[in-house]
């Protein structure tokens, strides 16, 4: 059964809802720029682990303006430290996607003892002039699925972008999507290189990188940036998916994560 609890960190000013499920060793999931949706990938992980999935500040319902209490990445990393403290997790395995993978990596660099394993799914955090990361915040929202997913009409896309009717649900989904992009984009605009290269050497956790072979937003060449900075980091590629392989191939990616965490 899935549980949820909201934690107020940052002197009570930032409320973060945490969805959790499963039992066993703790896994913390850091969602990407389109907000948290509980999905089959998390269900699959919850069969082996206790999954904690916090909502990025500002994306918890009725707490939109909390995001204005954080001025930058340093504040955000400290917020996560407070949240992990509140969850009673001295050390856990981290899984992050896209923007969330960058945050997971930053937290693991700031507090190496907090992460004993790290899985980064299509992370941002670096920049190469020759392979620019696409700024999804300036793309037509109606065309985002085609940029994110190998199959823009599949279930995975629908889960993130919501139903096509009724109108109320469409409106709510659009607000949620836009606000999630704004609240996460606050920490990566206009180029998602905010100094991780100066800090990533502090990461001690064994690290797995997972990349969709058809990623049209963050080219898989960026795996090299992580591999040459994190000793022993492994890379797994996933067929038939774009920037969200864990949503398009949940079983495959969950198996990779599970095997890696147990290794």
């Amino acid at each position, binding site marked *: 059964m899935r549980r949820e609890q909201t934690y107020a960190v940052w002197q009570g000013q930032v409320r973060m809802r945490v969805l959790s499920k499963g039992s066993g060793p703790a896994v913390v999931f850091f969602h990407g720029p389109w907000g948290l949706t509980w999905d089959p990938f998390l269900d699959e992980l919850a069969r082996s682990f206790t999954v904690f999935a916090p909502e990025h500040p500002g994306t918890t319902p009725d707490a939109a303006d909390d995001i*204005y209490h954080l001025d930058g990445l340093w504040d955000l990393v400290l917020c996560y430290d407070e949240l992990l403290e509140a969850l009673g997790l001295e050390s856990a395995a981290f899984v992050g996607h896209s923007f969330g993978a960058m945050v997971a990596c930053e937290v693991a660099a700031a507090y190496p003892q907090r992460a004993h394993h790290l899985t980064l799914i299509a992370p941002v955090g670096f920049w190469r002039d020759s392979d620019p990361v696409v700024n999804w*915040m300036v793309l037509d929202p109606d065309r985002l699925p085609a940029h994110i997913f190998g199959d823009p009409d599949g279930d995975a896309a629908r889960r993130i972008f919501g139903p096509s009717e009724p109108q109320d649900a469409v*409106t709510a989904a659009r*607000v949620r999507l836009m606000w999630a*992009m704004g609240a996460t984009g*606050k920490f990566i*605009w206009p180029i998602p290189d905010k100094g991780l290269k100066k800090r990533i050497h502090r990461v001690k956790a064994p690290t797995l990188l997972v990349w969709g072979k058809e990623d049209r937003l963050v080219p898989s060449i960026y795996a090299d940036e992580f591999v040459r900075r994190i000793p022993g980091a492994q890379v797994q590629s996933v067929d038939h998916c774009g920037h969200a392989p864990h949503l398009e191939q949940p079983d495959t990616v969950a198996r990779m994560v599970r095997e890696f965490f147990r290794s």
Partner: protein
Amino acid sequence: MKISAFHLMPHRELPDDFEKRYHSVWVTPPWWELADARRVGQYYNWTLDELLYAARAGFDGVCTNEHHQNAYGFMPSPNLMGSVLAKLTNGTNVAIVQMGATLPTSNPPIRVAEEYAMLDCISGGRLVAGLPLGSPMDVNLCYGITPMEHRERYREAFALTLKAWQAREIFAWNGRYYQLANVNLWPRPIQEPHPPVWVPGSGSISTFDFAVENDVCYCFLSYSGARSARTMMQGYWQVVSEKGRDANPYRAGFLQLVAVAETDARAEEKYAQHVEYFYHKCLHVPAIWFSPPGNQDYRSLVAAVANPVRRAENPKGLRYRDFVEKGYVIAGSPATVRDRLREEVIQGLRVGNLMVLLQIGSMPHELTLENIDLFAREVLPHLRDAWDDGGWVNHWWPERLRASATPRVVAGVSTSQA
């Protein structure tokens, strides 16, 4: 009533297939394919000549504005233009309306306070200080400001600017975005306590609140005309009332595209292609760039998604007659233009500070002068007394210019590029 001539300084010669070949007129149009610096120098000089012509023809003010990386209107520094205009209009009663330098893209923002003070000094106290938030294309996409910080930076910079103009003592500004240990502006503006402030907006409800709370003139800059602005401006006047301010029509400004000719039919012959150029090419921007995620606060986002203003029809599907019929452009004979301006804009929206855009898109220099001249002779004098009966004072106009109707000094003077 105060009526000012507004200018965008657009590229006037984009290729016919521009909107099909290129992604956007803003941010990404390739300079090397589309423009030539010598020709652009001519555009700047035409722009200055047209505004000076308007100043001499009897307009109350001349307006410039700031935009970046685009062919729609590219005065990256409006104060360079304003400085020329201030100098060359000395001895007249024309206001220098800067609409204006953008605070969040000026770092530190007291640069705007300094330059405006310079303009006020040069012009002898004729400055209207427009303090725009700046478009997301300019501020977020071109100048790299995080969308979610855009409005917060603006508000902080706004407060800093007002204080910097007025403070009698040197002060320290320990802000969230700006820290300055010794703020001591040189020069200060002539106008006291500070030049009149206009805040342009595009209908965001949070800007209504801001404008009314700060008791500034709110200027709705729309290209969809007065009819579609009516609901928006009613919203503004409601906020004015709710917050206990008077219904002084000079609290409101509005920008209207106007094209005047001898008859309605002649207006179509002379202006149709330029109006279509403007709407089809100069506004060719992806919709999402007007409000990238985080740029609107949550309340405005919810309102916009539930009831999008910009869900309005795509102007690319409209032609000249549609634009005129819908009021996007008020065009026709002097009688048509003055009737529609009075009814739809001045009375309909309750506007005391009217701005008119008379150089539209590809409109060439000579035709622009004709438009300015006809407007100044046949339209403007008939509108000037629109609010005289109410006894309202235009607190948002330079004090020494409030009473004066600018005499029409010279017509037909144009200094072309050397």
